[in-house]
């Protein structure tokens, strides 16, 4: 096994860089997997990027027909190879500028192509893990073709029926040369994950480090059954009224009203009395917000859902913080994501502790989370792929229920307002106002 390099006296130098190489015929959900993996890693602050060979190829041939993908078409073959080379070159450049996990989204369906990718990438000191999605379920493939591919830029403005037909011919052209990983037993040295028939059978081969196992575990937990996640902050708290952050206060009168209104809001959004599982933090205000929800909803408290710990600033107003710790106040505005309160937490810290929550969320179905501003921002950022610059500033108003529904290329958001007045706890950069209105396009 190609273990990490050591210098013999017990000192080891290494910095893992991983290239995730997608493998599989078209319409096998490769892009879906690539997108999700990228979103997850970025959210964990692991620099990740997807390099889609199709996008590179489209620069050259925007609307190719199926025979472009015929292996006998030398011109098509040359162009596709050039596109792959360009994508890899860009990826390697990106690794040099600090990238950690690069995802190469392409079919990579022949042994020769995989070997070429492997050689090109490992030469630059990057580990390779192949992730293959192999699926023979005709129905699933057709559904995928209809949903995703007919909206593909390759078929823009074309008759969907014709497009689907052409696309199937394209797949057939790929099938002629496609070899699944290690079909002939001579690719046993590769690190790979092969997912067959949407996870019915899985092969995991030669996982070389923790980050790889983490990616594999994440991909194993993904499911594609339809579901939604509901997010709400706690009702307005006594400290919210005073414009103080953190603490463990009870609800204000209006906050209690929200708690009573919440079951109705949830029912309206769910549309039936099928039970949700409710996750709250361990703080009084979220537990109190959940107390009127129907008895057949299972409720769990998670310490991991507690509000960002403001350390020495806990219980202060922004004005007090600016007065007492002017440098800290400014430092926080400059890099809110990484700023860690003295003795407290940063947004980055919160994301790390939310990790098990995300894993649970991915494998669960309908969940209602009642938590706090910073925590909801982090979970929201996970689903909506907000950058670290954006996520700490996302307005998450009180007394509002959000429904997130993950779809193939992104997440759908619906909001339900309780129409119960509450103070605003959003704060603009540099501001010390107690209650400030978010930007005019505010709300999420």
């Amino acid at each position, binding site marked *: *096994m190609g*273990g990490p390099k*050591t210098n*013999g*006296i*017990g*000192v*080891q*130098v*290494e910095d893992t860089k991983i290239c995730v190489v997608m493998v599989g015929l078209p319409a096998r959900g490769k892009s879906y997997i690539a997108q999700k993996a990228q979103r997850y890693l970025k959210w964990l602050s692991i620099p990740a990027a997807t390099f889609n060979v199709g996008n590179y190829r489209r620069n050259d041939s925007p609307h190719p027909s199926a025979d472009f993908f015929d292996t006998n078409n030398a011109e098509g073959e040359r162009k596709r190879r050039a596109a792959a080379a360009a994508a890899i070159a860009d990826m390697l450049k990106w690794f040099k500028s600090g990238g950690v996990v690069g995802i190469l989204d392409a079919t990579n369906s022949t042994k020769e192509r995989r070997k070429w990718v492997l050689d090109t990438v490992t030469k630059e000191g990057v580990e390779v893990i192949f992730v293959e999605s192999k699926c023979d379920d005709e129905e699933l493939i057709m559904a995928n073709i209809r949903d995703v591919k007919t909206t593909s830029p390759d078929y823009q403005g074309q008759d969907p029926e014709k497009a689907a037909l052409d696309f199937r011919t394209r797949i057939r052209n790929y099938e002629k040369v496609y070899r699944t990983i290690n079909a002939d037993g001579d690719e046993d040295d590769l690190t790979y994950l092969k997912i067959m028939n949407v*996870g*019915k*059978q*899985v*092969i*995991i*081969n*030669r*996982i070389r*480090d*923790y980050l790889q*196992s983490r990616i*594999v*575990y994440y991909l*194993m*937990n993904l499911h594609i059954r339809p579901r939604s996640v509901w997010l709400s902050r706690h009702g307005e708290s006594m400290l919210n009224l005073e414009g103080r952050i953190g603490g*463990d206060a009870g609800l204000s009168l209006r906050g209690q009203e929200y708690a009573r209104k919440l079951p109705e809001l949830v029912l309206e959004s769910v549309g039936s009395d099928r039970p949700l599982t409710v996750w709250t933090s*361990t703080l009084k205000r979220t537990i109190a917000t959940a107390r009127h929800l129907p008895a057949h909803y299972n409720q*769990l*408290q*998670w*310490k*991991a859902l507690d509000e960002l*710990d403001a*350390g*020495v600033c*806990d219980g202060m107003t922004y004005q007090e913080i600016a007065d007492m710790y002017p440098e800290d106040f400014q430092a926080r505005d400059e890099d809110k994501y990484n700023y860690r309160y*003295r*003795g*407290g937490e940063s947004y*980055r*810290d919160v994301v*790390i*502790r939310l*990790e*098990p929550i995300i894993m649970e969320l991915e*494998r669960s179905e309908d969940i209602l989370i009642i938590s706090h501003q910073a925590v909801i921002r982090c979970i929201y950022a996970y689903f909506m792929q907000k950058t670290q610059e954006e996520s700490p500033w996302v307005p998450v108003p009180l007394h509002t229920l959000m429904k997130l529904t993950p779809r193939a290329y992104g997440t759908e958001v619906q909001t339900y307002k309780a129409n119960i007045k509450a103070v605003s706890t959003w704060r603009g950069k540099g501001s010390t106002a107690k209650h400030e209105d978010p930007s005019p396009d505010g709300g999420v």
Partner: protein
Amino acid sequence: MDTLLTAEIAANAPRYRRRSSTFIDGIHDVSVDEGNMAPAQLYSTMSGRLFHSGRIAIVMVGLPARGKTHICVSMARYLQWLGVKTRIFHLGDYRRATVGEGGQVPQDYFYPNASPTSVMLRQKILKKCREDIYAWLNHENGQVAIYDAVNPTAAGRRALAKEFAKHDVQTLYLESFVDDEEILKENARNVKISSPDFHGMDPNEAAERYLARINTKIPVFETMQEEELNYVKMINAGQAFFYNNVSFNYLSHRIVFYLTNLHIKSRTTFFVRAGVATEEDSYKADAPLSEEGKSYALKMTETLLRHREQERKQLSERAGQEVPLRPLTVWTSTRLRTIQTGDPLKEKGYKVRQRSQMSQINPGVCEKLSERAIRSLYPEEVEKHELDPYHHRYPRAESYHDLAVRLEPIILELEREQNDLLIIAHESVLRVLYAYLMHCSTRDIPKLKFPRDEIIEIIPAAYQNDAKRIHIPGLDPSTVPGSPEDIRILVPGSPPGAGLPAIPGLSTPPESGAAESSAPVSITVARPPEKVVNTAKEMVADKVADED
């Protein structure tokens, strides 16, 4: 041998129900204390079962010398840590107990066309073991039963899954499949050749003989291919995995994830405290090391490196050739004092990683409060804390349980790490990580002690890990004691037990003026119990003829 005798009596006593199939250690002997949650258990349910996963039998498949026992024990340790009520049932223990000490099973015991008496014996042994499994799952709130046996035939496995299904138990097969000769021989050498049968024989020859004997004794073995069964096939000790997922639940995925991080190479873990900081009693102020702290860091480094060099020499002597050192990796938290404690090693070129998950337990409102103040401000909390120091959290503080949950990624990386590892962290973090490796109960974790003048070394062994303590000489005695208990924060110069009777979990700052008078007198350092119940070696010797 005591364990054997007890096992024999137990197996033959009609009304006796075993708590597990061996009587050895914390992993095998599950606590019956119902109210006691596991270290990293997130929540408890009325049924005692977690993750909505129902009851599961994990059935091992594989010939002897495939590392099944190692996998069983590691997996049980991890699941119990998560709070999943797990027990291991080694069929071999039942067989040995049934045929009696020194007894042998008939030659054709494992043959497909065995004689009726052999079949009867087999049935009897199986029945007893299964009865215990059902008792555990049906009447003792067990969630996972790990059934450790060869289970060589597809027909047998299909029948077993059906039988479990009848009892509303889901089956997950876990096969350890090895076709790499090197791994096989290594396993055989490590475990089996201490048998008298192979006494004085060349280890390689003994290993080969042993493997050949397995093949004659168990002539039929079919690797798993049953499409309708849930199974995970671990190939060549984790080099590859194949799984067939008919109805995997969260727990199954979690187990696969765990297994992908497991390896069978032997390596050690060292634990040390961070040096004394300038503001020792403050959690919020992220204070740098004091002068004593810096001197501690140097002395600790020196002691550790000397110790490693000694170990290497011993190994080299035994092997008759120079053995290279395993690389050493250092993990610290993101707190200044732990980072600075690692600095001398970093300067020598060792790789130091900062792990933000490893920061110390948060004392919340208790920070810097005097014991008296806490007593008067939070009398109810103090009472609750005394009842359950592991799970109770003071306002705005973390409990040990919170800490254990937060440390989960660290634990998996700990399993994966193939280098030797030095962990420099606050005592609260050391307690939890030590507890994982040594399987301590939640009642004991808050009380584990790690004096500063010791490096703890954990060495993995077949049934349970070993702990060793290495003394760091020449330290100022006042900096040595562990923080007395729980989240209490050390105040230099105040001997434990001085002043008011200690309240568990609270700090005892010096009374004004008292600090000087009680300065560095002789301090009796409370040594942690050498918590090693390791009869593992005997156990292994006992299992030498293990072809269950």
